């Protein structure tokens, strides 16, 4: 009987522990396959260009807010490819169930707010694997190109690729051209990162226009840009 109680307590503690993590920082490794992003006419350039580049990002969260941004002091392995129109972060307000993407243009910061909504076209495949000791289930996008590894042991608003949200935290995304994988998780978090930055709110359409403007500017000034 004592053994049963101890075991039950252990299971309860374990469950309590995993569900208790409602704050912390997840470090993601993002790998982009540059060769797969070259056009058919540019295939010969593979001879001079590294195949992949790796950068780290972090998802910082507590019960109310979250923030996804590039990890500080991380030098990219290979080259730096900026995504989504710059190095701006994504901010999440879980109480209001929205996230904000920021964009800076001519030293002015703008943001657009979008509802956190679960995507419905990705379906579970029945496959599972463990990432950082979290049991993850595989979801495949409708076209089969993306695999999402999702754990229900962490809050469902955690995603390295907003607005892609599923029935649990996304700890890995696998695709031919790009991938994200959670490589560490801790309970530490930097509270000031969770504060919304002062910025002007614009509509989603205006944001897209600014993003396109910024993308063409960056294409001209900094090189390859991949939109997320």
């Amino acid at each position, binding site marked *: 009987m004592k053994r049963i109680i101890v075991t039950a307590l252990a299971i309860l503690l374990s469950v309590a522990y995993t569900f208790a993590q409602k704050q912390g920082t997840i470090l993601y490794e993002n790998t982009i396959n540059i060769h797969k992003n070259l056009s058919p006419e540019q295939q*010969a350039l593979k*001879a001079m260009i590294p195949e992949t580049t790796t950068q780290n990002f972090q998802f910082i969260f507590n019960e109310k807010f979250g923030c996804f941004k590039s990890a500080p002091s991380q030098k990219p392995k290979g080259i*730096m490819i900026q995504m989504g129109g710059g190095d701006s972060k994504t901010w999440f307000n879980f109480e209001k169930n929205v996230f904000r993407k920021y964009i800076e243009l001519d030293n002015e910061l703008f943001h657009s707010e979008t509802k956190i909504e679960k995507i419905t076209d990705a379906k579970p495949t029945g496959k599972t694997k463990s990432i950082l000791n979290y049991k993850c289930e595989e979801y495949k996008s409708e076209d089969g190109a993306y695999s999402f590894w999702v754990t229900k042991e962490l809050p469902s608003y955690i995603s390295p690729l907003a607005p892609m949200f599923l029935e649990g935290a996304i700890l890995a995304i696998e695709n031919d051209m790009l991938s994200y994988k959670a490589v560490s998780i801790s309970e530490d978090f930097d509270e000031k990162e969770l504060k919304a930055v002062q910025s002007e709110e614009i509509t989603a359409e205006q944001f897209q226009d600014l993003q396109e403007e910024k993308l063409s500017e960056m294409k001209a000034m900094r090189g390859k840009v991949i939109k997320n």
Partner: protein
Amino acid sequence: MQLTIKNISKTYPNGVKALNNLNLSIGSGMFGLLGPNGAGKSSLMRTIATLQDPDEGIISFNGIDVLKEKDAVKNILGYLPQEFGVYPRISAQELLNHFAVLKGIHAASERKEMVQFLLNQVNLFKDRKKSVHTFSGGMKQRFGIALALLGKPELIIVDEPTAGLDPAERNRFNNLLSEISEDKVVILSTHIVDDVKDLCNDMAIINNGEVLVNGRPSDLITELNGKIWEKRISKQEMEEYKASYQLITSHLNEGKPLIHVLQEENPHNGFEKVNPDLEDVYFSAIK
């Protein structure tokens, strides 16, 4: 600096044997790889550039195993392929900067300096704000050289760079190649004999995936001394001379064929001994 190619063979799935136990040793300077279309030049270039694997053989460059250490090769290789894609509406300067980022040159100041230096070197600085897709053939090839020179490569491969260029552009381009070949291994793959004659201190002639001749152009020419005989003939006589002599070249001169034959002894019959040139070397090798 030394590029060593040992026993390289490649057969494509359709059965074409592109490279057949090919061996070459290439030192600093400009190396000419001469051969007719389909000789295996591009297959060899693509193999050295790590874009395709051979079925067997070894390639090494200054201690790097080219076929196994592909990432290391990317750091020291500059490659000007026969075609490279450009983006419309992006200027030469922006595009070069873009590829510098892809090449892994992170520091913005270093990148800016390098892009400006290269645009100057290939004489495109004044055209830096024009879109590359509006460039002439020669300008595109010079831009391609700037692209190949990003990251200060030690091994540069240029594949048929002067095909389709007018004489002035070709001359300008060849001068540029000559400038960049100091302290580097530059492999010039071409079927244009004059390009090799003008530029290269070492060369090989390949055909059917095999090395037929390898050496300094001047040495290879010397080997033919006293063996090249020239005669002006009529067009009607051509077939008869082809059947009777080892005819290696035939050019029209003042509307009449001027033929060169390879023969140890004087063929008499109106032939005159002439000084051989690289074209004689080339055609005597591939015939």
